[in-house]
């Protein structure tokens, strides 16, 4: 089947892709867990953006629109693939161990991968993209209350492996309390 390519790409869209695709990819790879899926998700999100670029470009925050599409695509993708366990991260190549505590790093990432897709997206948008709870609710199409509850549950799971040095700052954490009792 013959397909007619677009004669030109709007300069604004080309600039947007050049400027923001890397940031979108970084978000996607954290939610998706592997670079190939992340690449597909970003590609799909940008394709959809292109379709409405005339209107998107006039928005105050076009990236927020794209990020919304990206996050929803990611959640939908992993819901559709819900029967398949997420694989551990597929890194580009062997890299020097620059992180001071790789055990903890890997443990946190492993827990992240095991979270439900929407909960994982909440964490990435909150603690990597630095969005507010209101913005996350808008991006994911859920209530602020759901954002809070999802983030709270996710952090509770992460606490079990992160074991922060300042125990006194979260005395209500049952997992840590149990650990303290074991070590006492």
């Amino acid at each position: 089947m013959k397909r007619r390519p677009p004669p030109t790409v709007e300069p604004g869209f080309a600039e947007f892709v050049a400027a923001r695709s890397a940031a979108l990819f970084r978000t996607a790879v954290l939610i998706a867990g592997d670079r190939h899926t992340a690449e597909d998700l970003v590609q799909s999100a940008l394709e959809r953006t292109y379709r409405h670029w005339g209107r998107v470009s006039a928005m105050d925050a076009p990236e927020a629109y794209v990020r919304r599409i990206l996050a929803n695509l990611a959640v939908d993708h992993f819901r559709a693939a819900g029967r398949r366990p997420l694989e551990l991260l597929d890194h580009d190549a062997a890299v020097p161990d620059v992180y001071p505590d790789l055990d903890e790093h890997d443990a946190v990432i492993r827990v992240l991968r095991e979270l439900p897709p929407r909960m994982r997206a909440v964490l990435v948008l909150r603690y990597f993209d630095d969005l507010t709870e209101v913005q996350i609710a808008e991006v994911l199409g859920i209530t602020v209350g759901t954002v809070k509850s999802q983030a709270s549950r996710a952090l509770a799971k992460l606490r079990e492996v992160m074991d922060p040095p300042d125990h006194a700052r979260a005395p209500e954490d049952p997992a840590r309390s149990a650990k303290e009792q074991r070590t006492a």
Partner: protein
Amino acid sequence: MTTIEEKLTAILTDEADRHDVPAFSAHAIAQSAVAKGFWRRRHVPLIAAIGLAGATGAGGAVVAAAGHDGGGRVTVTFQQDTTGWVHPPPPITVDSAVVRDWVLRRAHAEGLTGIDVTVRQDPFALVVTGRAADATRLRMLGTTTDVLFAEARSVSSETDDHLLAESRCVQKSDIGPDQPLCDRNGHGYTFVISHDGRARAVSAHAVRRGPGVRDWAVAVRFDAAGAEAYRRQAEDRPDQSTADQRITVEAGPFHLGDPVISQPLTDGVFESATGFTRQQAQDLAVDLLDPSPEDGLLLLTATVTPAAHG
């Protein structure tokens, strides 16, 4: 921000830094967007494109369909669709005998006769030959059925962040009911698949709900796993009323649009909206009872050509 939150931010940043960022081409993205024409979910373009081809007589964006007489017989070749993928999807690996039996069973249920079926591997191709007069229905033999649980309230990733005008909330269909794209408030749907990926029907049959030709619906009863999947789906949306939970079925060109579930689906029973002819409702019931032997068959394109003689 607590210590844990700060540490999590650092770990996420480190993790993101460990991946080389690929180069995205604006031109390639635009080209792919234009080529696809429209999209919703990965297998929906196939369905929509078939409907479009039927309505306009032209090939759709995904399905290349060129009808020819071919001396009274045509060959429909189903192949894996790799359109629009940055990385090719995994190749289809199926049990040839299972797929062949599935197609023949569906053909028999739909009253199609004189069907020849061949399954080729590497690359996958399902080749069905039959009467040219049955070309449209032959093209449906390789399509699969998927039951989806949809939520209506979330802002859809497929539509704008503004409410859609009523006229844009329905996709016209010549086969079955028009396809609703929005909820009652004008928000686009976000489709989510069931937890188990697929809910299977244990019974499905056409039921008449009015005197008109298109007053037929399909009554469906899920298996226990399907009913349980719906229950869990509803539980996962505690902030959403059950009136906004919908079950949709995507099967070839058919789409059971807007069978709003107004109460928990505890018994696994639901009925579609009306809008089908008797034949369509019966065909869909057949599809629901025998959806697909292999998940990988979801991404098939169909090409119709004159059957080779001899």
